[in-house]
């Protein structure tokens, strides 16, 4: 079995969010790893516009992302030692919010729990809730590109729960 695969073409973030099933071609053959001897790629070039549809779903997601951003911001402010761990997650929520293309107002200020580990647990719970909400939003959305985007966001937020577990264990 050859151990070295074919070079994989670069994938921009826009392509990631907008490509249709032709993306499997970007990943060559099987979509995850190419079968030995297959050698074939099937990139279709079937690229849709970065459409976001479903105004109400958009607002729901944007409002939730804004709340998460506020929670991370207040937690980082209260526990600045967590900045290196939490700031990347905060930035990712800002990207999620930007992907909705919707502006929503900031939620009312809500101070984080006074104990660090409790504050991390609260973030973890919020991420878990968000991941489940995003899955529900996926079922309400109709535009395939928006469904894809929401799937990425749901996956990201589910992974944040694991990331926060590591943060908690390191304290």
């Amino acid at each position, binding site marked *: 079995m050859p151990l070295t695969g074919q070079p994989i073409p670069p994938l*921009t973030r826009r392509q990631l969010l907008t490509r249709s099933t032709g993306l499997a071609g970007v990943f060559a053959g099987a979509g995850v790893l190419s079968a030995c001897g297959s050698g074939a790629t099937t990139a279709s070039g079937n690229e849709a516009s970065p459409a976001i549809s479903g105004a109400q779903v958009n607002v729901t997601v944007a409002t939730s992302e804004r709340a998460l951003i506020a929670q991370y911001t207040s937690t980082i402010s209260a526990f600045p030692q967590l900045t290196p761990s939490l700031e990347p997650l905060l930035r990712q*929520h800002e990207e999620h919010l930007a992907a909705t293309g919707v502006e929503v107002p900031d939620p009312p200020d809500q101070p984080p729990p006074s104990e660090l580990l409790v504050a991390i647990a609260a973030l973890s719970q919020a991420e878990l809730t968000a991941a489940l909400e995003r899955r529900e939003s996926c079922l309400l959305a109709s535009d395939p590109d928006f469904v894809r985007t929401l799937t990425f966001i749901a996956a990201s937020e589910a992974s944040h729960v694991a990331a926060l577990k590591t943060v908690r264990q390191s304290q």
Partner: protein
Amino acid sequence: MNNPEALAAAVSGEDAAIYAYGVIGALLNAGPRRRALEALRAHQSWRERIAQLMPGDTAPTPAIAYDFPMQVIDAGAAIALAQLVENRLVVVYADLAATCEGERRADAVLAASECATRAVVWGAPSQAFPHDTTST
């Protein structure tokens, strides 16, 4: 709406993951090996679940072997391969979610979330839009 190509890509992706985890597990010990075996079982389960959505015997069959985009000869490379496979599968399942509806779409989102979570548990950094960053 149900894209046979996206279903086939998910089945093939799971076949590749199952193959990869066989190699990954062989290169790891103790806790990480157990984690690899758990992941292997999860991928086998998703493979069967997705294949059942395809009519008749239209589900693709696994390849005998798969190319890895890097040499996988030690534990570090095995863990890197696990991260890569999981993050690539997130994209495969996002494609699947976009082409189906209802419970199938919910399953695709759940599968994508599980893959993204495993990638992070294997030490990959979390991402706003999880995918294999070694190809970007």
